[in-house]
């Protein structure tokens, strides 16, 4: 019955108004499609189709019966459970928006009034907020703006419900309102004080970790080389170091089981103090979220850039929490350093520990070599020389190794990636009693001339070694560089043999494509630095540039208020112009004139007295003027209360007639 009445009487305006919230909700759910389970989007789509069916009159609108309401309550509970089952929590951005989208879908099913429709639009706006929080790339931003626009237009449609006021008119009025709102938004964006620190923290959902891990086995780093995604970007605030010195230090691995190098959870010894030599290189680094705890910097970093990041004894930067959003920091690094002491016996023991039963041939080989070279440095050089002389080759596709990985590499394939060389070198050094460890990180990077910064990609991942030399301390030795010197100043991609399928190599090879990629990266980086990371610090810097350097918070407040007030004036003024000022009402003027003249003949017209009643009173007082009185009052009543004139010309003519009548009345009264 309800459906029938809907079909019969619902005018088009109502139908458009009913469809608008559906569109907005569906787009809101799709914007979040990346972070909420697919079945949530499915639920929204099904609910939307159902609602469309209701609006079209094909399906019944849900009844208000008690059973149906209980059904809705159960559905809400079930969906909450389902969300809980897939996230193991209801707290958190993704779980929250999944729940929100389902609630919106349920609301859609029981939508009856304009209020329900507004609630759905509100849910869609919350989904938009969640999308903003979870993905802020430049490409997505226009989508968000369009969605906001649609939601605003939906508000207008739901409110107006007028035939003739369709989607187009609603988009028009909402678009104009948003355009007028943009300066307000910009003023607030620039000058609204950015409070730092979190009021509450929602657990961010665990996304996949990328980049270097806690351990390195043969093949670990090979897996990264096809990942063309940036790991971080670096702007040098001082002169950049030469390409061969661009070692970005990551996890330092000290524990070896014959196959895998691992990072020690902590150290039980203190390393001797170190003197940092030369001028520091100052870098501004923007890390991509990796869900790891490593903060990268050039070797060797002087101090931790932030309070929540600490520097380990082996000069690695580690934070307590994984990096799940882009962070930016400035650090100083020194390219050279020198120890001021000697390694403690405990430290030396840890740094030379090897599993006794693994890689037996390597251990024997190392002992043999060590007998020829007593000096630590000479021993290391001899090993590098061995790599150079015995046909070792750098390969991105090394063969698989057994558990005695170093034996397999040194005396088997002789074909390896940086990890193999580093692992083998460190093992030989340790077997020879020289403290050695593996450092993983990145090497090099691509210079972006458009943005003026260095992009370091995951494909630049690298592993090298450090050995302790008495009097010098930990010295970096990169055995890969001995075999493949090109790796130092060229990207890894250039070294890839043709047989290797690196999809992004194509991008890299085509010159204009790679230029385009760099430009896009530059724009994105600007977006990130200037817009997404706009914070109190940048606000204060902006104040300084505006000449309000020391005003601080007060300055922000003043600019905020002034900008806002100015634009409000503009709005008030421009809207006033849109309202056509009515000319002084000629008709009312003439009538007032007549009444004033007439007041000399009879008691003045009472405010509520009708014109014709007044006319009768006047006629009684001055029967000789009856014709004129009648002419004026009837013409006045006809213009004021009668049928409006078809065109302006006729209206003007009628007004003119009235004027003549009023004037002649005044003349006839005057002589007496």
């Amino acid at each position, binding site marked *: 019955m309800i459906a029938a009445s809907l079909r019969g009487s619902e005018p088009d305006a109502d139908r458009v108004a009913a469809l608008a919230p559906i569109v907005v909700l569906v787009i809101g759910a799709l914007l979040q499609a990346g972070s909420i389970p697919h079945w949530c989007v499915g639920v929204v789509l099904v609910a939307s189709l159902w609602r469309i069916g209701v609006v079209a009159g094909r399906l019944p609108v849900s009844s208000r019966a008690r059973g149906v309401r209980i059904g809705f309550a159960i559905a809400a509970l079930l969906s909450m459970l389902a969300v809980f089952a897939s996230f193991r929590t209801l707290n958190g951005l993704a779980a929250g928006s999944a729940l929100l989208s389902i609630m919106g879908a349920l609301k859609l099913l029981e939508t009856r009034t304009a209020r329900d429709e507004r609630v759905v639009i509100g849910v869609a706006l919350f989904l938009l907020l969640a999308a903003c929080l979870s993905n802020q790339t430049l490409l997505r931003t226009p989508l968000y703006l369009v969605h906001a626009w649609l939601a*605003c237009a939906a508000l207008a449609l739901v409110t107006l419900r007028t035939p003739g006021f369709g989607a187009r008119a609603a988009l028009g009025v909402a678009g104009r309102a948003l355009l*007028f709102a943009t300066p307000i938004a910009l003023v607030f964006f620039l000058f609204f004080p950015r409070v730092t620190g979190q009021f*509450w923290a929602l657990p961010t959902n665990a996304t996949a970790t990328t980049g270097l891990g806690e351990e390195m086995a043969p093949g670990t780093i090979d897996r990264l080389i096809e990942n063309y995604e940036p790991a971080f970007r670096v702007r040098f605030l001082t002169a950049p170091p030469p390409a061969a010195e661009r070692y970005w230090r990551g996890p330092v691995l000290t524990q070896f089981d014959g196959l895998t190098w691992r990072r020690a959870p902590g150290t039980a010894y203190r390393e001797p103090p170190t003197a940092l030599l030369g001028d520091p290189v100052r870098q501004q680094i923007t890390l991509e979220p990796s869900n790891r705890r490593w903060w990268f910097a050039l070797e060797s970093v002087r101090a931790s850039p932030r309070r929540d990041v600490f520097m380990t004894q082996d000069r690695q930067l580690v934070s307590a929490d994984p990096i799940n959003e882009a962070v930016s920091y400035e650090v100083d690094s020194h390219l050279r350093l020198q120890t001021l002491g000697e390694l403690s016996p405990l430290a030396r023991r840890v740094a030379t520990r090897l599993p006794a039963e693994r890689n037996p041939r390597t251990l024997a080989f190392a002992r043999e070599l060590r007998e020829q070279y007593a000096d630590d440095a000479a021993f290391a050089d001899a090993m590098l020389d061995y790599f150079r002389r015995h046909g070792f080759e750098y390969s991105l596709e090394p063969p698989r190794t057994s558990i005695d990985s170093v034996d397999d590499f040194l005396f088997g394939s002789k074909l390896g990636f940086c990890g193999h060389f580093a692992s083998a070198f460190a093992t030989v050094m340790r077997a020879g009693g020289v403290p050695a460890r593996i450092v993983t990180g990145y090497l090099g990077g691509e210079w972006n001339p458009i943005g003026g910064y260095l992009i370091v990609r995951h494909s630049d991942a690298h592993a090298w070694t450090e050995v302790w030399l008495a009097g010098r301390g930990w010295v970096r030795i990169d055995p890969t560089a001995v075999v493949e010197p090109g790796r130092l100043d060229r990207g890894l991609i250039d070294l890839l043999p043709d047989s290797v399928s690196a999809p992004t190599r194509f991008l890299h090879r085509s010159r204009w494509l790679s230029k385009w990629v760099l430009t896009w990266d530059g724009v994105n980086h600007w977006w990130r630095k200037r817009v*997404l990371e706009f914070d109190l610090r940048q606000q204060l810097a902006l104040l300084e540039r505006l000449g309000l350097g020391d005003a601080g918070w007060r300055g922000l407040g003043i600019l905020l208020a002034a900008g806002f007030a100015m634009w409000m004036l503009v709005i008030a003024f421009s809207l006033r112009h849109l309202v056509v000022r009515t000319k002084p009402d000629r008709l009312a003027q003439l009538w007032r004139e007549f009444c004033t003249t007439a007041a000399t003949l009879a008691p003045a017209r009472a405010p509520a007295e009708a014109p014709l009643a007044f006319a009768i009173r006047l006629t009684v007082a001055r029967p000789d003027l009856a014709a004129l009185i009648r002419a004026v009052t009837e013409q006045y009543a006809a213009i004021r209360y009668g049928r409006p004139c078809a065109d302006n010309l006729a209206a003007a003519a009628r007004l003119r007639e009235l004027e003549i009548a009023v004037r002649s009345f005044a003349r006839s009264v005057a002589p007496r």
Partner: protein
Amino acid sequence: MLSALRRSLAARIARWVKTRQGDDHPPLELLARRIYILPTRAGAAFGMLLFLMLLAGLNYANSLALFLTFLLGGFAIVGMHLTHRNLLGLRVIAIATTDGFSGESGRVIVTIANAADSARPLITAQLAGERPARLDIAAGTMPRFEMTLPLRSRGLIPIGRIRIATRYPFGLFEAWTWLHTSAAIAAYPAPRGRLDPPAEARAGGEAQALHRAGDDELSALRPFRDGDSPRQIAWRAYARGGDLLVKEYESPAGQFFVFDLAHVSNLATEAALEQLALWVVGAHARGERFGLQLGSNAIAPADGLEQRDRCLRALALYGTTERNA
């Protein structure tokens, strides 16, 4: 308790508005001084949503969320201006009323002109306690809001204040204005009763009856007016393609009725007035001349719709303080 408090507050505000604005005499223009504006319930909810978005944006130091929040906030502010503007500059041309019988309803007609060259959609006019009438006023037009006011008892019913309001365009704000008018609707006594007009009501000179022969003689045709009986319409003339004309009969010259409250003195006041109303309606329907005598208040005999309304109005006002209104 709370609702009583609310009511007293509302009454106090209403009084304040009344003293601030004074009585209104159309034509008048809706100027900023008399336009009030507040967020609607939806607007308050929208504000809450913006506050949460602001918190989230600040919490996560998320520029995009903050920009979105500020953009939507600006949008609401611009919407507020648009709402205000939608009422600003409208002209209230006239407030007219039509009387009615008690138990039925009277009408209040507000004529509003939009001289601007932009449309004024979603304007509502509302009498206190009644359903609002809604209009979309196109540019350069002068439509009329028609509201009905149920007449629950006989007498002069003041229409109270009229609320002209709009929520255009986004429903987040409502702008409104009050029209205070002294206009009132006369609620006629419901025409009912079982008595026939007494013989002594028939009056007038047989002496002048010589002037006219015949009982009901067609004397003239005049244009149709609201309230004319369809039986009086000159259908033949209409069928020939003319205007809708009404045959005016003149009853035998000089013969008329004078209905006197004294004729029904045996009835209670209200019942008596209802009986008189019935007689007046009947006499008018038959096209007779009639007058009314209500104590000292006499209405000279005449005929026509105006006479009917005059008599019914006198009946409506009988015994009320505003007898002479």
